[in-house]
């Protein structure tokens, strides 16, 4: 060993101390969670009804607290109906329910970028007016690894093509943009506070999301809510984040997370 190599370990801490980068600030730390098989989480979430997913969708909306649970349920059903209706309408109009072909016929530009992202907010796909759709491929690629975990395939079935599902969802936002004068998700408004004679009305963002999910489900014909993908795709980024999300969704639905000890993956 040369002299230089010998002194290096002693000098390094001093050099680091003098010239080391400033340590970055960290945000709030989350409590640890117990691990949970993804197959079991999918199985549990499969049983949630439409209203439970509606509650989840609303929980992510800034206007969530403006609605009673009854009103949320009603809006959820109407948004889902809207999504179904336009899925059939588009499939009829363009003569196909295959999302890739629909996108082509609608004149969409679909891109497949890579994108770095944090586990706090995992971005799967995006629509930008007038006609750009971005499908973020790392989410899709990570999903392939998650897919082979025990019990997952049995729940999600062979019908699932994640790329197609994401594309179908984003296509709805284009449809929404095209029919914004008449489509339910854009015409339904809620009255917000304003000084007396004035009015302050806003659309409700999550209605478009609920409808887009139903639109995608109808086109791709999968037998469950595409909202399952939230937990499923996050799992590829952070198992802990997926478990936390799962527990939150179960909590919103008023259900207890099931016990992983009794789990035997279906095949």
């Amino acid at each position: 060993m040369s002299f230089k190599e010998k002194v290096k370990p002693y000098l390094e801490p001093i050099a680091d101390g003098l010239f080391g980068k400033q340590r970055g600030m960290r945000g709030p730390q989350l409590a640890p969670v117990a691990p949970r098989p993804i197959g079991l989480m999918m199985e549990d979430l499969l049983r949630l009804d439409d209203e439970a997913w509606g509650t989840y969708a609303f929980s992510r909306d800034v206007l969530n607290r403006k609605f009673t649970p009854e009103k949320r349920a009603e809006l959820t059903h109407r948004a889902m109906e809207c999504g179904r209706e336009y899925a059939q309408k588009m499939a009829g109009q363009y003569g196909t329910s295959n999302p890739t072909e629909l996108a082509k016929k609608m004149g969409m530009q679909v891109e497949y970028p890579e994108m770095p992202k944090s586990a706090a907010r995992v971005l799967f796909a995006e629509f930008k007016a007038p006609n750009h759709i971005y499908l973020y491929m790392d989410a899709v690629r990570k999903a392939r690894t998650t897919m082979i975990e025990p019990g997952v395939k049995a729940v999600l079935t062979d019908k699932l093509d994640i790329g197609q599902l994401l594309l179908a969802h984003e296509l709805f936002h284009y449809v929404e943009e095209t029919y914004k004068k008449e489509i339910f998700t854009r015409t339904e408004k809620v009255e917000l506070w304003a000084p007396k004679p004035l009015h302050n009305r806003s659309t409700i963002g999550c209605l478009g999301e609920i409808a887009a999910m139903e639109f995608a489900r109808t086109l791709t014909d999968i037998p469950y809510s595409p909202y399952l993908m939230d937990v499923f795709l996050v799992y590829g980024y952070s198992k802990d984040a997926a478990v936390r999300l799962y527990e939150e969704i179960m909590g919103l639905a008023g259900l207890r997370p099931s016990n992983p000890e009794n789990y035997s993956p279906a095949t």
Partner: protein
Amino acid sequence: MEYVIGVLLLLTFFGLAYYCIKGYNLMIGFLVITIIWTVLPMLGSLVVGSAFLEANPILNFGPDNTLVNALNSIYQSAPEGWGTTLVNVCWGAWFGRVLMETGIASTIIRKTVELGGDRPIVTMALLNIVTAVIFTAMTGAGPVIAIGVIVLPIMMSLGIPKAIAMFSFMESVAAGIYLNPVNFAQYRAFFIATDEMPDFTLGWYAAKWGYAALAIALVVTTIMAGVFLSRSKTSHAWAAQTAGAQQAKDAPMYTLILPIVPVVLNIAFNFSVIGGFVIAGFAALFLCGKMKGGFKASCQLVNKLYYDGVVDTAPLVGFLLTLPMFNKVASYASPYFNAVLGPIMPKTELVVCIVFAVLAGLGLFRGPMTLVGCGAATLGVLSNVASFSVPFLYAVFAIPTITVNIGSCITQSWVAWGLAYTKVESKDYLKLSIPTLYIISVLLYVLTMFTMTGLDQVWYA
């Protein structure tokens, strides 16, 4: 001979600028430069001509001006003098923690968003306003992060691109800091001792310059964010928000006024800043039912919040207490700078404003314009080559320090946090912040020309 030393000092100054830009530890950087700037001028006093020493009595060491006294003033009195400033920082950090713990800050954000609804530009503008107002009172990286984790996901969920969301939030925080009493005390200490010029209060400063500065910074930020937003189009994203929307209970309506109480008391009655923090902080804790757990539990809570608050400011403390040594030592170095740079330094208020507006970008990366970077040295040089009033110099340096460094630069601790949190690239952030910082700076220097120039002799130190 003084020219040689002046040039050597200048080289070390550029060395410091480079060191800061590389993102190395600021406290150590300033400690090292302080030592160099002690050694060079003092050794220099042995070799320079006697005319130079007579013109600069500060370097003329002898029985009346001993070397030990000089060293003591740099390494002892200077950081001690900043103790008063540091105490304000600690109480401000405690108050910030109280506003988080009681849910007052998050309630204000939620109510604001429920006013704007699903309209990105409207909601963003409203959020900018409340962010600025909140940060007239809150201090430190902890509160910025705590508010950021609420505000940033909301903006992104409305389809605002993450870089624009972050830009809009961070610049609004900086806008609020123009009226923050803790920052005011902190920067004021660069120009005069705490007990000097008692009329230079936050109230006087706010009426003359501060309100307008905040308003200009906030309006420009919001307009720019709106322009960027309309150019990039809002998007509809399928994203999973895993951090979980906090379903915390709302704080009572009438407590939402508490964040601005310390600032209002200070501006209106020149009431003690710390007193304001204590009154508003305990009012918040009582009114939000945080003191119901009995005496012991309440004591523990107050104590824990103080602990967390001080930890929030800890990364800054070492730097803050090294900086005054540097400020002091700059007065020993400035005769040499004067010899070299004197002929080219701006000497009238108009020229200073123009030069600083043009060079505003040099406040980035802890450059020679920002007080929380090597601008402290620039101040030393500038105030020694010509005589400017204290409020004028304050305004001149506050602009690059607050808008350029704190709001726009990726070396600011919480901006660096935001980049990591939102996964925005540094260059994407700077692309938005640099044009904005120039617009804000130019407008604020115009404002400075109108309200802070030609002041009476009483405002000169």
